[in-house]
């Protein structure tokens, strides 16, 4: 039993704020990850009080943990993990346990639509609000055409909602200006897979943790961003044949603390490191030449590009130890089964797609793909990001179709009953940063933002606020709360959220879950699907035969339409129905007549979706983003081979100088999600990480005469924040700030001055291929503005812990942060059944 664990009602109770990952359940390689059912009920609620449990999955990170929602007297009162599910084997993380219900039950939820009258947002009825939207939309379409319209959505809606939005945007209006905040979190994952394998689609599985000999985490602070997945790794580490762990991260994260090799690279130098690691594979002959010959194209160029990147050169460029580079490469080269995971440290940094493709290349060079334990997880940042990529409410065409392939566009036109020319396919769909640029320039005059908060999450916030505030744009915001973004809206629509509507969503390793409606939404709030369908009806969008474009009346109608859209594509959903999802585990696509139970790993046969007529993309030049084009792609003669793409290292564009001598990087804490719209409403989570901070190394703090808790001003060429200092474990020369802290619950001084959001300082720049903004490359200076009145509020349980232990009060949750976790080593799970069959 762990410290702080207590018995209550016969269950083991653990303070899951103090102990983020819960009790260890060690297991060995190839064994079954034991079930532990985590549960949290609201104060005073007993299991016997509960009227019913309603099936769902958690939406407070991208892991996709299956759960059941406890309902009592038509209110959500608790949550527990689903034991049978392949993703989490019953576990839930702190955000899921403590944030899911309070985030929805908050009294601050929007309950009525609002419209702007004389500069003020005032409550109104749905008909008035929707009429105002439709009137503006119709006028603009008549006067300016579809290019006047932009849609900026989320990574947190349901599949059915993205698909509805995609059809409205592409076949109803016909605008290329559609994207989601998935651009900020997961665009590079998709881009890297398209470049290497010809299509989006996660090669690996969480199951690979159970079978691997080594895990490489590239810019992935899994211990905080996917706590349940990290618990699975911790359980392997605690088991009899611990896998090697290699961590690439400028902070001493929990991952780094247990790593066999920690490479604390300078932000912005990932590509140099990757070229160096790959060079070692070549130099030491850790390349499966026969497999590479049979299953890839492009290896010769890679060999040339990486040749100069000796461990010493990597050490000099990245600020790491040359021998550590050798050791990391040796672990990769000599382990039989390596699992690689990649996240924002690569995706939001310079050369994002290039560096992420090199992770794919490492596996391709060793032929380590599609085999148990040897997998790649190009991670997502949000629970339903995958569905936005699949359904095409972002910069993709639905079901991984290729906008450069006219036949693919025709398939959509046929499916939707519209002319092919209605669907924009003259160039790639417009990415988020470019959509905001068009708004800034006044050519997009209608912007509909759903379930996201760009006023806190986008880079260079002063600019974003100015754009949202422009008179030239009619702004619709659809959300659960009156967010920082909603305050700029012309119309605010109150949305129903998780537990208040039915739909499906898909996690990082392609596992589809159903989330059933548990209760009615508050007030007049309506599901995002209902709102989109209402807009489509009011706009009069019709097919060529005059019938309504979207004739759906329920989420399941939308889902069935999506199944047809996905038929025959890599993300084939035709074998997954609402009924098959009810009661059991989530199911990984593709699932169809050939694969009735879904597919755990892709590319088991070493055949990739690179056939020119089938692939999602013909690819890009990694340095510039220039499209390769059909002709050049056909000339590669891929025919099912993966594409090894290479790129020279290019230094980040903003490097420290005399005025801004420190590197600035941003990230997340385990206790908050996104811009805290839900997690700030959880007392347990918000107490654990209530306000912003900046982390700095001891050396830099000493040089700048900064002590723990001192108030510091951090300034970049674009803005400043004024926050307490955590003297912590970030690498020397680099400072870190969490990006969660906007202004909706800040003091008047902070919110008027805009002095806490990390994105005040970030740069408006993006990766040339994935178009993902570079949140992790900026230069700043930091000066003290006031003495400490106490330590900063940064949690002590994770990467933000103080450099000197014991100097700061420990982060604990207290009585209301106790949750039960019941271990059952014999319990059945879906993946165990599969392994034994």
């Amino acid at each position, binding site marked *: 039993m762990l410290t702080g664990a207590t018995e209550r009602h016969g269950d083991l109770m653990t303070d899951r704020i103090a102990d983020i990952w819960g009790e260890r359940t060690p297991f060995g390689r190839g064994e079954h990850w034991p079930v532990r059912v985590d549960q949290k009920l609201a104060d005073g609620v007993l299991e016997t009080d509960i009227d019913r449990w309603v099936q769902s999955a958690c939406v407070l990170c991208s892991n996709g943990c299956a759960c059941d929602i406890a309902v009592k007297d038509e209110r959500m009162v608790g949550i527990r993990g689903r034991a049978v599910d392949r993703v989490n084997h019953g576990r839930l993380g702190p955000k899921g346990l403590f944030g899911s219900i309070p985030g929805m039950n908050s009294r601050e939820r929007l309950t009525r639509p609002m419209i702007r009258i004389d500069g003020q947002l005032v409550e109104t009825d749905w008909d008035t609000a929707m009429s105002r939207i439709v009137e503006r939309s119709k006028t603009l379409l008549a006067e*300016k*055409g579809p*290019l006047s319209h932009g849609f900026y959505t989320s990574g947190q809606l349901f599949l059915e909602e993205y698909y509805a939005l995609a059809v409205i945007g592409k076949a109803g209006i016909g605008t290329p200006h559609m994207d989601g905040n998935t651009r900020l979190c997961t665009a590079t994952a998709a881009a890297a897979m398209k470049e290497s394998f010809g299509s989006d689609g996660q090669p690996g599985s969480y199951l690979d943790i159970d079978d691997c000999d080594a895990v490489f985490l590239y810019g992935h602070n899994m211990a905080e961003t996917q706590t349940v997945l990290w618990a699975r790794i911790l359980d392997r580490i605690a088991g009899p044949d611990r896998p090697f762990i290699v961590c690439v991260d400028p902070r001493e994260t929990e991952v780094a603390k247990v790593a066999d090799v920690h490479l604390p690279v300078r932000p912005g130098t990932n590509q140099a490191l990757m070229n160096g690691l790959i060079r070692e594979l070549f130099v030491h002959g850790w390349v499966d030449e026969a497999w590479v010959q049979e299953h890839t194209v492009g290896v010769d160029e890679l060999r040339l590009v990486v040749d100069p990147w000796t461990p010493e050169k990597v050490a000099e460029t990245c600020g790491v130890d040359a021998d550590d580079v050798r050791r990391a490469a040796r672990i990769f080269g000599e382990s039989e089964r390596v699992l690689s995971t990649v996240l924002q440290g690569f995706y939001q940094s310079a050369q994002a797609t290039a560096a992420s493709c090199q992770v794919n290349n490492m596996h391709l060079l060793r032929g380590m793909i599609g085999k148990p334990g040897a997998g790649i997880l190009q991670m997502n940042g949000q629970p339903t990001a995958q569905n936005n990529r699949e359904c095409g409410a972002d910069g993709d065409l639905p079901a991984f179709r290729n906008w450069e392939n006219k036949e693919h566009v025709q398939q959509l036109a046929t499916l939707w009953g519209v002319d092919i020319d209605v669907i924009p396919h003259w*160039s790639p769909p417009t990415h988020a940063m470019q959509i905001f640029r068009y708004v800034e*320039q*006044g050519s997009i005059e209608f912007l509909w933002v759903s379930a996201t908060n760009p006023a806190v999450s986008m880079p260079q916030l002063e600019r974003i606020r100015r754009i949202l505030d422009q008179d030239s744009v009619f702004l619709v915001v659809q959300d659960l709360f009156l967010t920082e973004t909603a305050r700029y809206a012309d119309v605010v629509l109150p949305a129903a959220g998780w537990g208040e509507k039915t739909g499906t969503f898909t996690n990082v390793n392609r596992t589809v879950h159903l989330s059933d409606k548990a209760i009615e939404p508050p007030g007049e709030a309506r599901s995002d699907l209902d709102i989109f369908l209402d807009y489509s009806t009011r706009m009069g969008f019709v097919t060529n035969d005059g019938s309504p474009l979207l004739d759906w009346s329920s989420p399941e109608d939308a889902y069935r339409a999506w199944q047809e859209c996905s038929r025959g594509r890599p993300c084939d959903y035709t074998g997954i129905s609402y009924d098959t999802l009810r009661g059991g585990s989530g199911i990984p696509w593709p699932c169809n007549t050939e694969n009735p139970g879904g597919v755990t790993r892709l590319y088991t046969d070493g055949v990739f979706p690179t056939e020119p007529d089938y692939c999602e993309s013909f690819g890009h030049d990694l*340095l*510039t983003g*220039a499209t390769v084009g059909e002709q050049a792609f056909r000339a590669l003669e891929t025919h099912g081979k993966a594409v090894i793409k290479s790129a020279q290292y290019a230094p980040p564009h903003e490097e420290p100088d005399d005025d801004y001598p420190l590197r600035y990087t941003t990230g997340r804490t385990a206790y908050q999600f996104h811009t805290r719209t839900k997690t700030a409403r959880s007392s347990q989570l918000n107490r654990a990480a209530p306000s912003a901070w900046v982390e700095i190394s001891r050396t830099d703090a000493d040089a700048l005469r900064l002590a723990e808790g001192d108030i510091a001003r951090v300034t970049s060429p674009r803005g400043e924040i004024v926050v307490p200092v955590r003297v912590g474990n970030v690498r020397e020369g680099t400072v870190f700030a969490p990006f969660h802290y906007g202004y909706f619950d800040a003091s008047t001084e902070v919110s008027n001055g805009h002095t806490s959001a990390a994105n005040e300082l970030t740069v408006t720049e993006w990766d040339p291929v994935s178009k993902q903004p570079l949140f992790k490359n900026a230069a700043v200076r930091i000066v003290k503005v006031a003495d400490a009145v106490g330590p900063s509020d940064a949690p002590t349980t994770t990467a933000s812990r103080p450099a000197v232990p014991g100097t700061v009060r420990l982060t604990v949750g207290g009585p209301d942060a106790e949750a039960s976790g019941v271990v059952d080593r014999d319990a059945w799970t879906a993946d165990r059944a599969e392994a034994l069959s």
Partner: protein
Amino acid sequence: MMLPVYLGLLRKAEQMLASSYRQVAEGHGAEPDVYHLCQTLAQQCDQHERALAPVTERYGEQPDDEPERLHAVGISSTRTGPVGLIRDLQDLYLLANLVDVTWMMVKQAALALRDDQLVAVVGQCDAQIKVQLGWLTTRMKQAAPQALIIAK
């Protein structure tokens, strides 16, 4: 032998393209991708000039006796606004094509001379110019509909 004339034309064309990229970068700094990529591509052109240096050392460089008939003097100032952006990118496209075709002529001579060093230099530099053309095309195609139909 007139190859030295072409080596001179090539060097000047690369220089002109580099300075034009830098001009467009400065003029369109509000488009971050244009700003950064134009800087990067200008550096590529600088590097091409350096890669040519050992070849030019061997063959020498001669001015052309013929006066220029088509006057490509590079971009000395930029336009503004969305249409201004695509027109400036279009000018870069023309200049990059001039560089590309000049490399092509030099390559033909290099092949006929069996000059392996020069063939290698051409291979490396002209491939990059082709990617530059690819990027300019990609970026212009993306920007054109908004600029030509709806921008203010």
